[in-house]
């Protein structure tokens, strides 16, 4: 009932026109170009590499695997492996050793992976998804195959093309370009999850994408496009599933009979499963109010952000660099970090000094929290060092979407406080478990 629940959404100015129709810049893997692969996964678990210094690799050669999930990594260029180098990693927020590959400019392709067709069994398709090494390309980087590991009671596959973060247009561009692979990916995933129908969710006013997809959906009764309101955070799973199916769930979308994937991940699935060539390129939006020529860039995975920013003409002014969107992203000091598969954008904004005022307890943060939390109460409890109360106030359900800080009229850094409160609460909970 709207009387008691938070609204949890708000229309944000999208700034999408900046990059929506600008010409895409392609960065070739020319001779001497270096690409970097981190030795730690975003969650801090190590990645083991099977190649060593001096090895020759080709585009699509398996170079390593994550230790926590069965996600293989493939080289995005052909060339020679160099010595490990310490490079900044925005995911773990510090400099860590990276595997470095120097391109020879030839872009020779390795032996393709085993391909599957739609007639193959569910298990074969699952194995192929696992082998493809695809992670969620919306930003979270969650391995895609895990969602299809023997799912039960799935009715609907939702393709998330909402792209609710301001500035980002990679989904807009790629979903428009590669409709065939999108539909093919949908079919593979429906087969793997035994979903009966697919809903491709895109925001209203994205008529180009809608028309492009609809034009090829004439013979596909089980796939349809659904428009969702232009609000933030529409792209968050819970909000999107509630919007489309009306159902709410506690932990996993499967509870609502839904499996959900990012639009670009689905395209990649279609592409990799049908051709056997692993993903080596990534489309990335470079945008913001201090970028000279904001546009989308296609580059090999592992390219340094600095090269990308340079390719679009650099910045006009002092800037804050955010790998990701301006709401969820975390700004970094340097642009010397590689682009990973899950990274969809680089946002460069003019730094704004924010002056905090006293909290007037208006409850705007509570009304805007999509997770239904009370950030103002969590902040008060955190300031009073009452960790028990922050846990009681469900601080761990926070998804750090940034809505509380965004909506606060007193400009209080609520999201930052929530992140800190979560860290403290996590520590406290782990201590309690030990006891």
């Amino acid at each position: 009932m709207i009387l008691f629940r938070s609204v949890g959404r708000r229309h944000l100015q999208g700034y999408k026109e900046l990059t929506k129709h600008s010409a895409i810049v392609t960065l070739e893997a020319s001779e001497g170009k270096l690409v970097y692969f981190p030795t730690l996964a975003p969650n801090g678990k190590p990645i083991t590499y099977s190649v060593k210094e001096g090895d020759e690799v080709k585009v699509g050669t398996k170079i390593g695997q994550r230790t926590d999930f069965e996600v293989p990594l493939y080289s995005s260029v052909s060339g020679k492996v160099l010595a490990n180098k310490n490079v900044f990693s925005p995911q773990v927020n510090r400099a860590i050793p990276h595997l470095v590959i120097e391109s020879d400019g030839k872009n020779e392709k390795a032996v393709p992976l085993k391909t599957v067709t739609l007639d193959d069994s569910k298990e074969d398709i699952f194995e192929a998804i696992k082998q493809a090494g695809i992670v969620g390309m919306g930003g979270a980087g969650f391995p895609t195959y895990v969602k299809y590991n023997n799912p039960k009671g799935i009715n609907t596959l939702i393709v998330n093309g909402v792209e609710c973060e301001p500035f980002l247009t990679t989904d807009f561009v790629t979903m428009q370009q590669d409709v065939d692979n999108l539909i093919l990916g949908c079919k593979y995933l429906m087969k793997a999850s035994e979903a009966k129908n697919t809903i491709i969710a895109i925001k209203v006013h994205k008529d180009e994408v809608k028309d492009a997809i609809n034009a090829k959906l004439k013979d596909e009764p089980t796939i349809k496009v659904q428009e969702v309101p232009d609000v933030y955070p529409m792209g968050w799973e819970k909000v999107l599933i509630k919007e489309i199916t009306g159902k709410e769930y506690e932990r996993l979308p499967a509870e609502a009979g839904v499996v959900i994937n990012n639009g670009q991940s689905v395209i990649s699935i279609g592409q990799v499963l049908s051709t056997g060539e692993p993903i080596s390129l990534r489309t990335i939006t470079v945008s913001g109010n201090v970028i000279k020529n904001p546009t989308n860039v296609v580059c090999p995975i592992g390219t340094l952000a600095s090269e990308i920013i340079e390719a679009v003409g650099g910045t006009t002014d002092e800037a804050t660099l955010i790998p990701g969107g301006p709401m969820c992203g975390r700004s970094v000091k340097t642009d010397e970090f590689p682009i990973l598969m899950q990274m969809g954008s680089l946002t460069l904004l003019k730094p704004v000094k924010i002056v905090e005022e006293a909290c007037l307890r208006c409850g705007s943060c509570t009304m805007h929290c999509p997770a239904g939390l009370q950030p103002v109460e969590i902040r008060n409890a955190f300031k009073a060092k009452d960790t028990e109360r922050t846990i009681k106030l469900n601080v761990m359900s926070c998804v750090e979407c940034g809505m509380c800080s965004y909506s606060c009229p007193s400009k209080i850094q609520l999201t930052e406080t929530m992140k800190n409160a979560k860290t403290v609460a996590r520590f406290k909970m782990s201590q309690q478990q030990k006891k």
Partner: protein
Amino acid sequence: MNYVQTTAPYLRRKKTTLQIMIDLAIGLGIIWVLAIVMSFLKLGNGYGLNSIFLMLTSIGVTLVCDVITTILKNKKDKELGKKIVYDLIHNYSWITAMIFTLCCPVWTPYYVIIIGSIFATVIGKNVFGGFGKNIFNPAAAGRLFVLLCFSIPTPEGIKGIDATTGATITTAINSKLNWLGSNAIPGFGIKELLFGTYFGAMGEVFTLAMLLVGIFLAVREVINWRIPAFYLGTITLSALMISLVCGFNDPILYVTYHLCAGGAMFAAIFMLTDPVTTPTSPLGNCLVGILAGVMTVLIRVGTNNPEGVVYSIMVVNTFSPMMDHFITKKTNKNTLVKSAVTFGSVVASIALCAGVSYSKNGGREVYFVNGFKVEEYYEYIEPLNLRNINAKGYTIAKTEAFEDEGLYAPTYYKLLDGTLVNKVPEAEYEEVQYDKEYLVKNGKKDIGVMYCVKVEQGVEADGYPIKGNDYCIAYVAIEFNTNAILEISLYQVVQSTGTNSEGECFGDAYTEMVEKVVNNLEYDNLTPEAFDEIECNATYSFDGVKKAVKKAYEIYAKEGR
């Protein structure tokens, strides 16, 4: 290349706290302008200027208080000047001052405004640590302080409700109705109450204007709509239920009194919505609105206080931290429990208000005749439109008016508190049809019988100045069920002047007759036999009365009710 690191998120809403306060100030400003216009138009330039300068004084005083507090707090700070400027704007005492002044009537003395403003700013806000940390609504604290410390009499020349006692609307409703009754109070119809064309506190009278401002502010997300909606809703439903259980004649007027009088609307829009002193969660806001509503109604009907709004604000302010403490669940969970708690509270509040009113009033509407509280009154139906109003009295008695003005009105009744009053003098008379029976009605219900007898002979001998075709009428009304005499009356129909009118003077004999009746009869022995035993010098007229009594009892027996 290096980049500037700041914290997420990097986009912020344009709306700031300052903007919220400016919006609020605009809303308050509209009400203030209305108050100024009304003061100039209706009270002349003196009070018109007062309405402007009271506000400016209050704002000035609060700002001075802020400066002093800031200096005391940051004595050794090198950037003291900057801090003072910041606090002047961002302590938002100017909003407190505006609300406080609009709560006071335009004839408030300046020293009262100054003291109230100081209390509101210093004790109400700054001792707690300034804006955002105060427990009580500072404006309400200031208003309550001056309410308890100073009595602010209405100056002469202001046509309020009651020029003689200087009563404002709430004191009028309190003294005349005790907040339990739907009698019309002259000058306070629904129209006046909605448009605010009467005098009260500067801001609290413009109910309709405030409602519109409130809707505007709620749409602009300046105030939380839940609090006023639940506050006004609870008051409306409670008042409606009180009217039903007490059987008031005009529930709509009664509800209007509760909603419009005494600043309920002002509190709903500008004071209860103060975010600092109300809970932050949606459920807490709903509950606080309900609590404030029930407190307002209970203080009005249950106590002798004329006003409950400002107390209710202070009371719910103390509950806000508790609500914040206990409401820890996610806002999008347990909707069923929350609905049950909220609507359960609404129902409980309504029941509580109705119960208190019923127990206070015994399920009867209280009426006031000439300023006295009486239990019930009946309307006689035509054709005998003799008296518009008659009170139910259990003893026939005489009053001071009896001696002062002679035998002006021949009927008397006993009041609940034991005093005796005479009848409403404004009743108009038509040609009376005598030797006829009438039903006495209360609304649509028959409550008794009445009989009228013409007394022609020998009345002059009893001391009445009868001329020409003039004659007297005796009538008696008996109540069904109780067998009690509702009214007993003897009066003169003067036809010699060409119009039918009540006689001005009844002689000593009549006085004696009434005294005899009063002295000899009690509630339980008002029978024809008891009348027969009374001896009275006013033989002829008293015989007429006896005849009327006898006839009335005959009809009563025949009716068998």
